[in-house]
């Protein structure tokens, strides 16, 4: 089915099988292998990408659902050689071991920062009617959709905290 989709700033007009997930489309048709297929059922977060600036699980979406959408993957975050602040923070804090979940973690954290800027609450938000403050408990809760089997969670938390502190 004809689908027009913008990925990392590049327009694509393609024919895709209706069954193709957004994740498979990115990986197999566009050869963007950064987004990872972990569970393929929306449980691990390794496939997290940004669609129109909002983080979603690319495995639980069909490419044909994204006609006209703008997708950003891990490959689209850096500006040339200049890393995105969250990419740099993950390096600085050594926030990974095997690295498989890392692209999803970083895209997820980029989405998190936008959600904080928009004032969206989470389950960890004590007062729903007050300004959201990015505590460690908030970061943990908001990153719970991204599993890390190497359990680099303390460093991931530190990286998000570092990037958020720099942005504040």
């Amino acid at each position: 089915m004809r689908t027009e989709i913008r990925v990392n700033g590049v327009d694509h007009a393609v024919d895709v099988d209706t069954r193709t997930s957004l994740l498979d489309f990115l990986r197999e048709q566009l050869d963007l292998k950064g987004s990872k297929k972990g569970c393929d059922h929306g449980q691990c977060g390794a496939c997290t990408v940004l669609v129109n600036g909002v983080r979603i699980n690319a495995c639980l979406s069909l490419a044909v659902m994204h006609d006209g959408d703008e997708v950003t993957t891990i490959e689209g975050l850096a500006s040339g050689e200049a890393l995105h602040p969250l990419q740099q923070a993950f390096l600085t804090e050594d926030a990974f071991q095997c690295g498989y979940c890392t692209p999803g973690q970083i895209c997820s954290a980029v989405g998190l920062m936008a959600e904080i800027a928009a004032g969206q609450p989470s389950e960890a938000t004590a007062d729903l009617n007050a300004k959201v403050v990015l505590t460690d408990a908030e970061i943990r809760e908001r990153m719970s959709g991204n599993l890390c089997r190497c359990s680099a969670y303390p460093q991931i938390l530190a990286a998000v905290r570092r990037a958020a502190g720099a942005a504040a």
Partner: protein
Amino acid sequence: MKPFAFERARNVDHALSLAAAAPGARFLAGGTNLLDLMKLEIEQPETLIDVGRLPLADISETAGGGLRIGALATNTVVASDPRVRSRYPVLARAILSGASVQLRNKASMGGNLMQRTRCAYFMDPAKPCNKRLPGSGCSAMGGLSQATALFGASEFCVAVSASDMSVALAVLDAEVETVRADGSVRRRPVETLHRLPGDAPQVDTDLAPDELILAVELPPPPSGGQVWRKVRARASYIGALASIAVAGDRVALGAVAARPWRARAAEAALAEGAAPREAAEAELVSASGEDGRKTLVRRLATDAIQESRKGSRS
């Protein structure tokens, strides 16, 4: 995943005519549950009608002082809306306790209501399950399921609703508005949108195949405190073992039935002056299932009702 035809609905009428013309079609919104089940071939629709671009995402005030939430408003948008946060915090809390941010960013109001059970045996095509394959038996009875129905189960199915959001909607007396291809618009309470399993557990709701959810409407919030509690096996991103929504003198339980369970016996007891624990006991008189979960529900309900009486709205 089995092959299927994919249609992009241009407007509501187009979506409805596509549905009327294609028996076996399913409406697709966020897709977070339906596509997952299609990968497992538990769902095998011949046609998907993508309604994701229809203009049904608005949240607006109603003339009666309530809130009308479009069927395509995402879970994140609803939980973030200042009117929901200040007037219906039990709804914001219930939504925020479910799934992950990635899923809530995509999951819709209507899709959340239409999600199917997460019973482990329903999700495992290798196991008998009357809901998935009528007549094949129920593996959950005597199985390892942690959350089976305490209320409204039948000899054919003990699966529970997986929706946290619907529990809050039920306690708020929310209604679902739908439209069919013949133009008929209908309203149902969220409380009874889902069928109890009876002898046909494969049928989740009484919605017709060409019936599309347009919106959920909330009446003005009841006076009194609102409380949401969810008990689960880990701190985040997992389904409930039991949940509860309290709003004023109303109580609804989650993960204990095939629908969000309004605890009418508990409400009646409270109206007669019963203490919170006595009210919880009154509801559990009609409960079936193992004692451990009844104890969990008793403690949860007692605690949540007590907290609601402090008048807190969070």
